């Protein structure tokens, strides 16, 4: 017969072992916001590191694109490994929806997996990331919702166009127009946002207005996520081609290759 003392001893040992093994052993709430300094302003830090290798004039380069990783963690891990096998990409863009419910642990899991990427990573916000306190967590972890970057004389515009979850009517078109003004000097202009204009949260008016801005300011390509499906084509009669990245579940990664004569979207399966 096993004595009580032995059972208690075993139980305590099991508990102590488990405590040591668990990450983030103290968790006050799934809705907690507030990230560690080392996990903060990741986009700002990434832009600094990307621009260190940039030039004032155009030179051909490639970038990696993926998005809607949600909680498809195993596929997400494979995408990271796939990008790591490529030495010819200068940075990677995540097209938003890095979480399913915008909760604290999902942000930490994203941070954990994406930190395995050897290329600098820019992450834009998706509609799911606005749930719960995701709006705050995103800002703490990555920086401003809307931002721009100039790299090798190309303009990269990153727009937060989430509508329903913010309970607003329109994306910040004023900001978008402001940054696209006077952008003729750049070799290429790209706009990245999570939701494509033909998707449900956009009203017909907003869809039309978004494409008009793209057309008016000669944007070369409008890039999105949200639909979970790969699309690349001329969506409207006027305006640039549109691209949507698929979700991690589809087993695809994307590349944008730029050279003197133009650019192309390339899809590879892993």
């Amino acid at each position, binding site marked *: 017969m096993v004595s009580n003392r032995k059972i208690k001893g075993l139980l305590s040992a099991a508990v102590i072992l488990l405590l040591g093994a*668990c990450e983030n052993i103290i968790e006050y709430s799934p809705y907690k916001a507030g990230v560690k300094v080392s996990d903060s302003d990741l986009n700002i830090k990434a832009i600094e590191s990307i621009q260190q290798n940039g030039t004032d004039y155009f030179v051909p380069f490639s970038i990696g694109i993926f998005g809607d990783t949600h909680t498809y963690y195993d596929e997400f891990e494979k995408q990271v490994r796939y990008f790591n096998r490529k030495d010819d990409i200068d940075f990677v863009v995540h097209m938003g929806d890095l979480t399913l419910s915008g909760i604290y642990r999902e942000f930490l899991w994203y941070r954990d997996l994406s930190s395995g990427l050897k290329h600098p990573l820019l992450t834009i916000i998706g509609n799911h990331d606005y749930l719960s306190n*995701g709006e705050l967590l995103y800002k*703490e972890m990555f920086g401003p919702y809307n931002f721009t970057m100039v790299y090798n004389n190309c303009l990269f515009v990153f727009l937060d166009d989430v509508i329903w979850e913010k309970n607003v009517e329109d994306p910040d078109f004023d900001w978008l127009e402001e940054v696209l003004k006077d952008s003729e000097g750049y070799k290429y202009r790209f706009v990245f946002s999570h939701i494509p204009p033909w998707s449900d949260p956009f009203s017909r008016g907003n869809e039309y207005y978004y494409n008009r801005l793209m057309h008016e300011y000669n944007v070369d390509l409008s890039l999105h996520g949200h639909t979970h499906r790969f699309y690349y084509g001329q969506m409207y009669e006027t305006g640039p081609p549109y691209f949507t990245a698929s979700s991690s579940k589809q087993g695809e990664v994307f590349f944008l290759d730029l050279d003197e004569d133009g650019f192309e979207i390339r899809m590879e399966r892993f």
Partner: protein
Amino acid sequence: MFMRNRLLYLFLLLTLFASVAVKAADRYPPDDDAARLTGLRKPRPLIIREDTLHIRPSWIIPDHLKVQYAGLIGFMSVGAGYDLSKRYDATLFYGVLSNHLGGSSVRVHTVSLKNSWDLFKPGLLGNVTPKAGVSINWGNTNNTFRRLPAHYPEQYYFQNKVHLAPFWGAEWQIHLPAGRTFKSIGIYGEMSTLDAYVLELVRTKYVSLDKIWNLALGITLYMD
């Protein structure tokens, strides 16, 4: 999705009904079973001048009070509950998490109903009682909802206000001398997780067992 919500409501209602029913049945137990009476239901003498009144305290007074640190329901939480049977007790908690209390940049209020079962016969391990159960947590903060706001298409998101949190742990009970307000104090530690984490544990290889548990510590005061 809505089916799942209904089941949750049903479970909640059943728990509440059970608590009321068990309490009502316990109210006037047979005299020969006096040993089963908890201190609360014992008539208490109250002496006013020369008259002695016997007062039977209301069943509404809780059997135990709890103070808990961490465990998904706030930085600190306080609760009160009933020992509804020999092995089952339920506690209603209110917990808070804020900038000052827990270092979160946003405030979260959580109300939770913790259902806890003793895993072994009382006394089997002396003063230590292993427990397990499930807590139903209502989180109140930004952008949480039970019902989707009207501007969304139907079933666009699953509700994100109520979560089930399974837990297991143990309590060490220290008996106090008779005649005090509290007959004993329990010190407990618990490992808990969340429905959303368990789902990813099942669905993915990445989320492993060591990624889903967290620790709560607390004190229970058992009323005499």
